């Protein structure tokens, strides 16, 4: 009883304090929402206009080989009025002179919290002497169609965020991109893979029927970690699970892919993830 009373008093005192601080904080919160707009963290990849629309293309960071979060804002030309009712399609294209190929992508849909259309594009090779990337944004505003094309400079990351291989089952070309964690921390991290296959040079559909098993390893120490959650398919090639990093440093997260009948698609792929 004695302790309960003390706890009660402490709780009441703490509650009061909390109320007081909550009241004074309210005003700051509005400002914070503006500065916390996720789009302000994005990088502007380019701005193009036609007679019907002007388009700003953003990515969550400089375009790289792997899964890129793409944001698109469409404005009435010459104004700050966003057009939200348009439908948007993406078309990434790698021009290698002798040949062209596309890449996996997700068409943007309007995202209120972002204040923009949000989608993705998974660049499967870097820009360079081999060829150059463009990303076309196809608008359809109630039948009025426009195509705006942005040149994109795609760089590789020091630690690969995309790997490709031939299926051990049928030799089809598979692309696996690491979507999360982007900024790994000690403890549990969301672990998300995007898995696509190359149907033709222009079609890279999501692969939705795989089972994924992950095994984190600290190669330098030769140990793994417990309590990981194997990614399972959510939708459109997103496989979401959890990885547990028991300490900071260099980790190698191995993954194994099997099809729905349990046949091996990839016996040992991995992503290196280093953080401090």
């Amino acid at each position, binding site marked *: 009883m004695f302790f309960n009373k003390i706890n009660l008093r402490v709780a009441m005192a703490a509650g009061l304090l909390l109320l007081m601080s909550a009241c004074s904080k309210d005003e700051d919160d509005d400002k914070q929402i503006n500065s916390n707009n996720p789009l302000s963290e994005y990088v502007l990849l380019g701005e193009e206009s036609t007679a019907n629309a002007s388009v700003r293309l953003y990515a969550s960071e400089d375009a790289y080989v792997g899964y890129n979060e793409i944001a698109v804002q469409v404005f009435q030309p010459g104004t700050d009025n966003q057009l939200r009712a348009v439908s948007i399609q993406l078309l990434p294209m790698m021009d290698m002179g002798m040949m062209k190929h596309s890449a996996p992508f997700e068409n943007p849909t309007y995202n209120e919290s972002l204040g923009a259309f949000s989608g993705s594009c998974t660049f499967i090779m870097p820009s360079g002497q081999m060829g150059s990337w463009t990303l076309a944004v196809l608008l359809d505003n109630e039948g009025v169609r426009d195509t705006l094309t942005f040149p994109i400079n795609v760089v590789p990351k020091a630690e690969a965020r995309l790997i490709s291989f031939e299926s051990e089952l049928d030799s089809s070309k598979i692309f696996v991109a690491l979507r999360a964690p982007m900024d790994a921390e*000690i*403890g549990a*991290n969301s672990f998300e893979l995007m898995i696509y296959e190359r149907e033709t040079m222009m079609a890279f559909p999501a692969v939705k029927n795989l089972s994924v098993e992950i095994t984190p390893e600290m190669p*330098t*120490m030769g140990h793994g970690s*417990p*309590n990981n959650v194997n990614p399972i398919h959510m939708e459109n090639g997103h496989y979401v699970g959890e990885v547990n990093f028991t300490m*900071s*440093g260099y980790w190698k997260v191995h993954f194994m892919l099997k099809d729905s009948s349990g046949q091996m698609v990839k016996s040992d792929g991995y992503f290196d993830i280093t953080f*401090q």
Partner: protein
Amino acid sequence: MKAVFTILLYFWATGLFAQEDTTFVDLRHNNLDEVLIIDTWESKDALKTKVEFQPLEVQLKQIQGVSLVSRGSFAQELVFRGQRDGRIQVRVNGMRIYNACTDRMDPSTSYVVSNNLQSAELSSSCESACAANGLAGNFNLKTKEACLSKTDSFKLGLAQQYLSNTRGLNSSFYLENSREKFAWRLNGTWFKNENYRDGKGQEILYSQNKKQNWSLNTIYRLSPKRFISLDLIYDLATDVGYPSLPMDVSIARGLIGGITYRSYHAIGPFKDYELKLYHNDIYHEMDDSQREDVFMHMDMPGWSRTSGLSFNAFNWEFRRHKIEWAGEYFSNYRRAEMTMFPDNGLEPPMFMLTWPDARLHGLGTGVSGHFNFGLHQLMLNIRFDYESSSITDKIGRDQWIGMGYNMTDARTYHLPQVSLNYSRFLNEKHQFKLAMSYGERAPTSSELYGFYLFNAHDGFDYLGNANLKAEGLISSEMGYVYSHQKMNLTSTAFIQQFSDYIFGLNTNFDAMTYGANGVRAYENVGIATFYGFELGASYQILNAWKAQSTLEYIRGFRPQSDLPLIPPLQADFSLNYSYGQWNFASQLRYAAEQNHFNSDYGDRYTPSYFLIDLAANYRFKIDKAKSLVSLAINNLADSYYRDHLSWAGIPAMGRNISLGIKCGL
């Protein structure tokens, strides 16, 4: 009570049931426990020379029921009736101290040096009074105090000792100033030892150590019946080798301070009381830079800070009964890190929190009653503790959330303790005693939140378990004492049964430590049982001759298996002779083979051993300086042996000849 009361297997038994309810080893008025004479300055008994100058832990081992876990030759960990770490409590001047080393390289005993120890009090779970709440036993080490004196006087003492085995030098001094209202005492000790050698003459690498210890005690008389005193201890050990472990210690530093207010004015019905405020700050840094076969260098610093406030009221007397009351609050913060440095130059360091900023708050109160009905005496002790612990660091919390734990709530424990102690004098010579107790303890920081702590004894990484329940102990002991003129016999038999015993069980996780055997996680595993007995006898043959002997036995097991690190049957016999200014002492020490061991937990069969120690000292005066020269030989036959409780099976020290001289003004 949830624990089932098992059949009490009582052996022919007894106790070191001294006059008090605790086994109180007073250095100046020693009776049975003369072996444990720690007063190096005013030794009056040849027995003292046998152990004086020895490290404190070695002296404490002389108390019945006490053994030592050693990871080298420094800072051994106390074991009482097979229990250690979180199951027993070791305080210094009534202050709680929590170690800062995840490997327990720095037990509380390491902050008190032998020449500054006034007394060591030990009480078993059944005997403990309300001021302590160790589950299976309590130690309180009291350091020497300055004495007030009507005449203004200075005292100075110097001592120097050489140890042949470790080529060790041990120096100490004290300076004491006594006046009517104010007195202080400063004690300083330094020692330095090289690697020791075992009985085959082999050098045990990484067993060196170097240490200094400073202790200041002051007392001020506020009024005839009120005193205030200050205790300060600064202890710095550097370059301490731990041959049983994969790494050593570069710095172990302790700063311990307390202010005590003592009043002999009544407070309520209590005649006198004591109020104590204390704080200590322990820092510990492990070091593997001296080792050659290191897989990967790492830094492992640890911090432990404890503050506390305690209140004890004594002597509520009515008829021949007495009641005392204790209350305390304490708070402990612990953090330990591990940073590993890959030497390929490519990868960043790897970091984790092995103790993730654990914050422990405790609040406890208890009352003890001593009821005296002539030949019958009864002591009843009731105490209740509330402990709450949580992780205060984000990385630490994330580590444990990553392991699947809910870390939003603090872990709280409500811990009752109750004991009942009955003793009866059959007549002047015979005393019989029976005691029972039940208590609970909260898991330690390591058991709750330890993150992959490597245990070099069994080679496993240990993971805490934040969902542990409190551990319970029901224990009972029976004792019989016979004392008649020159003869003194004591015996105690005890049985202890733990419920929700906290123990590491195998997991299928990967070990974090390179080369480790696997990972064990702490669980409440149900029942663990300990039983044993302690016998003691002493006989004053003639005025100049005295013989004494002890015998101890303990068994500890879970239903399916023996528990690790349980001492074997041990006995010793000593014979002392004094002649004029000379004192001579001899001692035989015996440990039986240990057949009850658990090899899954790092134990191995340990053969029996038999050791002989000899000592002599000579007392003389140079002018006014009382001086003493002593010579002691431990392990005379240079036997090669291993103590069952030494980690990783390292052999113990071979023959050691120590030569000491000291004088006091």
